[in-house]
């Protein structure tokens, strides 16, 4: 076993520990989502990062997918709620296909990040 392989085993072991510890898992996923969504205010990579955190620490693939869907719904509610609050909802929907694409886009990016659960 090389030094790098040793580190890798250590990382995998720690991730497995986090995945099996509900409170720790919840805390890290929450922090990751918050950080990712905050970053998404400035760059869309934040959506991938939020999804990646979910995928990395979720207990199962199913849990990762459900959590990713939940985060997307939170993004939708926040985005549309914000537009509603400032009286811009009808203007947002006046953009038609662009708005539809914009609403689907976070789903795709979050799921892309969360898909890491399927290979780890």
């Amino acid at each position: 076993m090389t030094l790098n392989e040793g580190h890798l085993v250590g990382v995998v072991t720690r991730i497995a520990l986090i995945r099996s510890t509900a409170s720790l898992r919840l805390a890290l996923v929450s922090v990751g989502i918050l950080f990712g969504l905050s970053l998404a205010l400035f760059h869309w990579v934040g959506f991938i990062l939020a999804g990646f955190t979910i995928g990395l620490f979720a207990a199962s693939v199913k849990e990762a997918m459900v959590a990713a869907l939940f985060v997307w719904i939170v993004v939708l509610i926040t985005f549309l709620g914000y537009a509603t609050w400032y009286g811009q909802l009808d203007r947002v929907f006046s953009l038609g296909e662009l708005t539809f694409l914009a609403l689907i886009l976070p789903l795709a990016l979050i799921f892309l990040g969360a898909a890491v659960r399927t290979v780890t």
Partner: protein
Amino acid sequence: MPFSLTRRRLLAGGIAGGLAVLAVPSVREYIDLLAPGSGGVWGDLGPAPSGTIDGPYGDATVRYDEEGVPHIEADDERALQYAHGYVQGYDRLFQLDLFRRQLRGTLSAVAGEVTVESDEFHRRLAFERAAEANAAAISRTETASILEAYVAGINTAKADLTAPIETSLLEYDIDSWTMTDSFLIEKLMAWELTGSFRTLRRAALAETFSPSIADDLYPSRYDHDVPVLPGGRDAIMDRSSPNWSPPPAAVNWLSSFEPPAGQGSNCWVVSGEHTASGGPILANDPHLSLMAPPIWYEVSLETPSFATRGVTFPGTPFVVIGRSRHAAWGFTNVPADVMDFYSFEVDDEAYRIGDDWLAFETDEATISVAGGDDRTIERRFTNHGPFIDRHDAEVAIQWTGFGGTRTIAAIRDMQWVDGHDSLLEAVDQWDLPPQNFVYADIHGNTRYQLIGKIPIRRTDGEAVRGDQLFDGSAGVGRWDGFEPYTVPTWDGFIPLDELPHAVDPAVVSNANQRIVDDPLHYHAEIHATPYRAERLVDRLDAAVADGSIDIESMIALQQDIHDALAEAVSPELAEMADTADLDAVHEALDDWDYQMRTDAWAPLVFELWLDRFRTLAFTDPLEAAGLDDSYVPSDWILANLPADHDWFSTAGDRDALVTEALEWAASEAAEYDDFGSFQQTQIDHPFEVGFLSYPRYPMPGSTHTLKNFRRDPTIGPGWQQVIDLGSEEAYGRLAGGNIGRVLSPHYADQLTAWIEGNYKPLDWSPTETRRLEFRGTSS
């Protein structure tokens, strides 16, 4: 396990594929645009600017009303205009940049190949040099210092606030605004109202067909009896036939940069002796291009020394059309002849004037092209202006707009006008574009005045008409007191008191028709067809007779949709439809009241017939001769050119063409439910993409109705106002929305009310929905 490993490899490949897609530049560009939170499209999502901001020129308060109209107050005019610049710099920033790029000839730097020809035209005419001459014309005046503050406000907004969505789409940053840029906007509006190559087209028509055909298709006046000011003066000099012509291809090219045909306006004033309130009522609705956002910007400005409310152009700091506390004013276009064309004997680098050979002033201009190769053009200038040598043309263009004009000072001085004397002082500075100006005040004064500088062309000391092509080498058609790209003295131009005017008229109205039958000076090649004017005069006369003139009746008059052209030709059409066994068409036209209603079928048939007959009788034969559709004569000619005219030996038998157009209209009309399903608003953003353009709605009216609407290009009353100086009530409506940010609730919030003719009060005290405070940072 082998299966699990394979599945994981497949999934890992899927993730890698997904990431690889994100690495594709065009995909990343879309995500950069659309991602919620960071996407460029969403920059305006959330609160519009509000709160407290530094005000380097002093305190000012901006209160936005329920329709996104800023009401700006300050003790100092510079502080006021800094705040005004700031709000325009947010509300209309992209439009400002678009307009200046058009006139500077720098559109291609952001739009690419598609605008190269436009850039070349605007570079060759050197509008930016003309705008610089404007700056020289008002330098060291108070107006210049006010404009400086306004420009600073635009630049602060540009630096501090979110960029418009359009710049995200085109991926560029907007440069700082300058005083010259504001003058470019003035030049743009002047070009929109006076830029005309009709003289060249008439010459090309004469060359291609015959001088008599050219004269009849392009007459110098329409035979009607509703001039603005009835009664004549001295007879004007005769018209001459063209003696040379640039190649049609060159005229086609130049004509493609003309403003769209059909721009005009309605304006009238009724004195207090005929109104319910006992004070004058003034109404005005200018018909310019309709676009999203509108060409007009609604604003209210107030200092202790004046208050104005109305509309201005983005890039212009003062109210152009509107009201003050004690007066109201409005305009229609004349349209004056302020552009002449000169041929020269040319020898490489020089052109001859009399016995002298003068070197062309030359330079090179480089047109940057986004995604393409830059173009460099050599520009040549004569003492009469830019020398155009495209498509084998060799013609110099002289336009009053190439001089330094002071119109902005006139607009500013309107803020204080309170009677005839101060009015004349203000409008004497109005150099361009010449306008029919209508005025009324709370003291009961009313006035009609043609304003603007119009040249008296001289050949051997004698005044000559301007609708001819001049031999520049022979020194004919000279304008005294004018040199392009400098500040003119205007010595050889028509003095203000020799332009048509009426002091305290009881009723005066204007719909761009002929002003007087025999003007003292030549001032226009042709005025508008009289269809709107006839209707306006008839209805105003009737209203005066029955004493029913108040705000409501004048708004109703602006909304009138009676088509006088339809009234003139429909009986003949109905008869020919009967002969052609087009029973439904015959019945519809026979029973029609000539109202261009959206829920009716007859106006649909009529408009379809008109379009088709115009094509068959004019567009097609002109195109067959190599002349584009800019040569198509007016609808007056279409309706009145006799069947035995020489033209129809070229175009075909008139009656056969009328019938063919009727048959086509009957067939085409079956595709629509009614006129409203055919004629829709179609008010688009310059990008012509759906989400930036206004939604379509059925639109009543036509190009010949007072409620004016042209489908293509879209033209209409972008601003409507009716002001009663007796009751001091005022009502108006903007076509679209005041804030040009697509996510703003005020992007299109006035549109349906505008279509319905539902006006709003133009109050001084708004219901505040948002506030900006500018706090002075220096004395």
